[in-house]
């Protein structure tokens, strides 16, 4: 079943037409990878799915985005609740200048949970599922900014997992990481997709083939090709796709 899908989505920043008629279905409990050259609109598309672009004053759009058949841009949709259901991990780890514990607890607290024992359990669970518990369990009250980049990125994943979203959007989560941290996060994604629906932007072709179930290739704000990952990489239908994945441009 499709967890989230866009229909004839057009996005503009002011006069600039960024996305052109994007139709994409992202099935439940699967990983969808978005690939394409820099500036083609992958991040813009991703940020449309949790209405993060609403923060940009010049943003406007046409077309629809459905989460479980609810149109998320409907007037009566509660954006705060939407962002709780559709979590996001950013390209650059952006942990808060708070303790490791409070970074993860924050999401729970803002959603009205104040039972400290429950928060403790949830934080531990989230840190475990982001494969970082062993590294931080003895220093939960220390500042998160003292962690390495890879650890902070996993902390940010834990923070997102803690609020139990249904969809997790990841914008190049490994772009600043070494190969070992990258592999850890890839393992993590495969683990997480049992419970969540994941959409990931990546510039790393190997990563797309390793983790994703389906892949969409963006070029100049349009989807050129979309299909099961293996098929798209082994047997691309479009010439542009072929050129991009074989590294001839982009």
């Amino acid at each position, binding site marked *: 079943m499709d967890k989230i899908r866009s229909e004839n989505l057009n996005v503009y920043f002011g006069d600039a037409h960024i996305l052109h008629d994007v139709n994409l279905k992202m099935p439940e409990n699967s990983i969808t990878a978005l690939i394409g050259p820099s500036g083609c609109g992958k991040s813009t598309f991703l940020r449309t799915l949790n209405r993060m672009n609403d923060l940009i004053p010049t943003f406007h759009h046409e077309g629809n985005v459905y989460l479980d058949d609810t149109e998320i841009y409907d007037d009566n949709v509660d954006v705060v609740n939407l*962002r709780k259901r559709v979590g996001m991990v950013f390209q650059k780890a952006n942990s*808060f200048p708070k303790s490791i514990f409070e970074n993860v607890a*924050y999401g729970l607290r803002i959603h009205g949970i104040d039972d400290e024992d429950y928060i403790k359990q949830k934080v531990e669970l989230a840190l475990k599922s982001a494969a970082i518990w062993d590294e931080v369990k003895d220093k939960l009250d220390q500042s998160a900014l003292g962690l390495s980049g890879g650890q902070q990125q996993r902390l940010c994943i834990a923070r997102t997992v803690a609020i139990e979203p249904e969809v997790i959007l990841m914008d190049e989560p490994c772009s600043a990481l070494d190969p070992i941290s990258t592999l850890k996060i890839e393992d993590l994604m495969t683990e997480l997709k049992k419970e969540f629906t994941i959409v990931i932007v990546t510039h790393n072709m190997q990563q797309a083939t390793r983790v994703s179930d389906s892949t969409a290739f963006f070029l100049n704000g349009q989807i050129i090709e979309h299909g099961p990952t293996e098929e798209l990489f082994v047997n691309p239908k479009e010439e542009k796709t072929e050129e991009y994945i074989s590294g001839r441009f982009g």
Partner: protein
Amino acid sequence: MTNSTEETGIKSILLITALFSIFVIFLIMAFIFVEGWPAFADYGFFKFLLGLKWDPNNNIFGVFPMIVGSLYVTFFALLLAVPLSLLCAIFMAEVAPNNIRKFLKPVIETLAGIPSVVYGFFGLMVIVPRVRTTFGGTGFSIFASGIILAIMILPTIISVSQDSLKAVPNSYREASYGLGATNWQTIRKIIFPAALPGIVTGIILGMGRAIGETLAVIMVAGNVSQIPSSIFAPVRTLTSNIALEMGYATGLHYNALFATGVILFIVIMILLLITNYVQRKYKMDVGGGTL
């Protein structure tokens, strides 16, 4: 080779400039201490510090009412100015649309440039009469001085706080909204704490300006050297004490005014130490997060 000579050259120039400014400050301090010393030595430090009566004609120099006066006036001004300026800074940095912000910023900066005699005159003509008719007494009071000082330090606290709110990286905002936080939650729990060190700096600057302001306070405070009985009673501050009498002071009286300066210096140092301590303690409480 040339590069490292250049480096050493620049380093020594910077060092000399820094040492020179420290030296000048030290010189001023030394002068004040030397001139004030007889008041402590001949008159007695504790008699001077804790004495309740200031009567230069009879050689009685008790500075305690002025210490109390300065603290009262400064704290009352902060009490009014801090909440107001923080809300204003948050509004300008986080809520106001761009055109309103572009209008407000120069207005507030202009406010900071108005000379204090103008504020004092405003206080004398507008605030003091209203305090008199509303609360009784002469109108010259802690209350009137606090209001004038609060208005005077608003721009300082607003500008510095707003700058430090604006300096909070956008990625914190995005992270918070991305977790489903509301506008207000994001401001209160993420942006404000992250900007707090800068905001405290703004408050300290405001406090320094309030405790040091002389002219405007003289015009509305009443200047009676007596521990004030209420917030509507007249008051004399340490700085006013110096300014009012320095024109004609000689002998021990002259030394006593410099000694008042020394006391002012000590009071400011103590206030700075306290805020510094609070700031550091708070930082540790939020998990050592800094910007």
